[in-house]
């Protein structure tokens, strides 16, 4: 069950018209490609995608799931939007309420285990390994955790565990963290236990219907077996303009743990089917990722360029992210900037970040250029 209803309001104009999981990433992907590809690569072929905020582009993008090989006769991908019940419209008020309202979907398959994912993170993970771990430990719920730097631990939901990785305490954004194992928002439940707790939670009028805030603490309280699954590897929440920029820059690092070129764990996406990129005689390229359909005539350094984008003659672009179909005019100077899809930056523009990473879109362009 992939939670993809998030608004991602800290991504500002990037999420005005699209849900956060549909935000472009890494030159050709959208964020949701990572969990969906992880599902396919892990042998999970029945995936419910829960959408709510601005679902049009996300729904169109997912389609029947063929890009991730999830167009299946049995199972496959199913988009699960909120719906009108006989008495009222039931919006997804929290992560747990979203799953609760789709119990019928889960009943249809009556699985042994349910994997809960979020559509907000960039990472590669074999969920099958986590499932094996979960089954071996005989856990009611396993929560995937990652070691974060101690100084950042107070930004996360922290799991305090015993020597056998049993979760003994859960601290949501603790001031004085006792551990640096942060929850990645990835859970595997025994289906019967999940169902029981979702029903209990729904009946509780004071609950905020959230896995981290309500379901997990209650299970701990009632002595269920909660186990932390230690994950090692690249994992990044791309919830802010800065972290989205940073994650794109990470891809340019040759030592980056997130290897897009690994054929054994491909990240699938809807391919735009555009011609190869054209690099003109005067172009200069270094340390960059460039997708098909681009025209590069300028100087591009440490930059991620998405499909159909144009970098015109004399433009100098560095440490930036140029999203699909954006056009950087002649002789522009672009430094540490994210240019939103389809933005046309006029000739001679100078856009440089000082401190915070600039996000340039049609809405903000005029104002930014005035400065």
């Amino acid at each position, binding site marked *: 069950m992939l939670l993809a209803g998030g608004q991602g309001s800290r991504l500002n104009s990037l999420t005005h018209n699209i849900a956060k999981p549909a935000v472009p990433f*890494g030159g050709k992907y959208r964020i949701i490609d990572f969990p969906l590809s992880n599902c396919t690569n892990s042998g999970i072929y029945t995936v419910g995608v829960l959408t709510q905020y601005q679902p049009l582009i996300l729904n169109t993008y997912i389609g029947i799931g063929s890009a991730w090989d999830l167009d299946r006769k049995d199972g496959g991908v199913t988009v699960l939007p909120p719906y009108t019940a006989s008495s009222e419209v039931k919006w997804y008020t929290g992560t747990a309420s979203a799953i609760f309202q789709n119990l019928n979907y889960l009943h249809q398959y009556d699985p042994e285990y349910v994997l809960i994912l979020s559509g907000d993170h960039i990472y590669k993970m074999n969920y099958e390994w986590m499932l094996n771990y979960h089954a071996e430990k005989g856990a009611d719920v396993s929560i995937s955790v990652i070691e974060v730097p101690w100084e950042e631990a107070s930004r996360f939901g922290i799991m305090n565990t015993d020597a056998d990785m049993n979760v003994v305490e859960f601290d949501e954004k603790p001031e004085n963290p006792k551990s640096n194992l942060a929850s990645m928002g990835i859970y595997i439940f025994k289906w019967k236990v999940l169902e029981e707790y979702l029903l209990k939670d729904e009946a509780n009028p004071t609950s905020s219907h959230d896995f981290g805030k309500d379901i997990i603490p209650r299970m701990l309280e009632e002595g269920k077996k909660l186990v932390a699954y230690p994950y090692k590897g690249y994992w990044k929440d791309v919830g802010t303009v800065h972290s989205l920029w940073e994650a794109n820059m990470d891809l340019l690092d040759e030592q980056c743990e997130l290897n897009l070129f690994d054929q054994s764990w491909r*990240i699938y996406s809807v*391919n735009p089917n555009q*011609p190869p990129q054209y*690099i003109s005689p005067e172009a200069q390229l270094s340390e*960059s990722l460039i*997708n098909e359909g681009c025209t590069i005539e300028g100087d591009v350094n440490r930059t991620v360029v998405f499909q159909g984008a144009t970098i015109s003659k004399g433009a100098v672009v560095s440490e930036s992210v140029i999203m699909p179909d954006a056009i950087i005019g002649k002789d522009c100077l672009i430094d540490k900037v994210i240019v939103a899809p389809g933005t046309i930056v006029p000739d001679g523009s100078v856009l440089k970040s000082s401190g915070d990473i600039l996000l340039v879109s049609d809405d903000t362009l005029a104002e930014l250029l005035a400065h």
Partner: protein
Amino acid sequence: MNKSMLGIIDSTMVHAGLEELTLHRSAAAIPFGGRYRLIDFVLSNMVNSGIQSVAIFPKLQYRSLMDHLGSGRNWDLNRKRDGLFFFPSPSLNKSVTDPGSLEHFAEHIDFFNRSTQEYVVIANANTVYNMDLVPLLDWHIESGCDITEVRKDGASLGIYLVKKTTLLELLDSREESGYLSMRDAANDLRSQYKLCYYNYDGYAVTIDSIDKYYAVSMNLLRPEIWKQLFLKERPILTKVKDEPPARYSKTAAVHNSMVANGGEIEGTVENSIISRGVKIGKGAVVKNCIIMQKSQIGENCVVENLIMDKEVKIEAGVKVTASPEAPEVIRKGTIKGARATT
């Protein structure tokens, strides 16, 4: 009136001039432009012109062609009704002499009888062009033609338009008429049919020799040419591969080239076409080359004026060059080591 068209791709011709690239594949399946196969042009033209039923008549070595086309999904031809059809010749081993494409069509006469489209467009699979076929159909009808041949600068492009009923007559009477192919029917001065020639003035080249293959590939580096071939509203569709974007390292220097996804470029590349998944090592120099899928150029290599077929490996420090007048083909899967002679 049903003005719909049936698309026939005639891939039965064998081109001796392309032998080096067709040892393991038909001309239709020759890789082109970094990510395409030659057949993608005609197939996309048909689909973009509203044709929903396309039949391919291949001959010899069609494994790679079938692998490329699959169910036709990438061209939106995986349909319940109509869609993509594949008709290899049932008499593959029968005759030594080429029986001609009309014979091949006649072997699958049921398909033509069953199709509901009123017109048939028949085209070869090795022409590079982006052409809207609807104006051709309109012109054919307005001019009251029976058989229309598309020409460019007076030479045939191997594209024909006829009514389906006319095609059935041609197939039925092929023994009396002696016609082997549509070309014969369209150029018989004593024909009982009204023969017409439609002049196409967009970019179009039929690739029937290595020289032409090389020249047309290099033409892609001229923006005025690729802008005529790759149009947003009429895209050339191909089999998609989930390759990541091309990656350029600090040491890369790329000028006047086309680069497809999945490439990892660390060396110098000039005036070249680099296909999907190609690796070019540090210090390597690639000039005036066409490098096909998954080939690898090691560190400090020098390669010039080559057509490198798929999965070729040039080991570090090796120099392989040909003269610009006679670009050389390096066969699929070749490994050039330091001690090996060329």
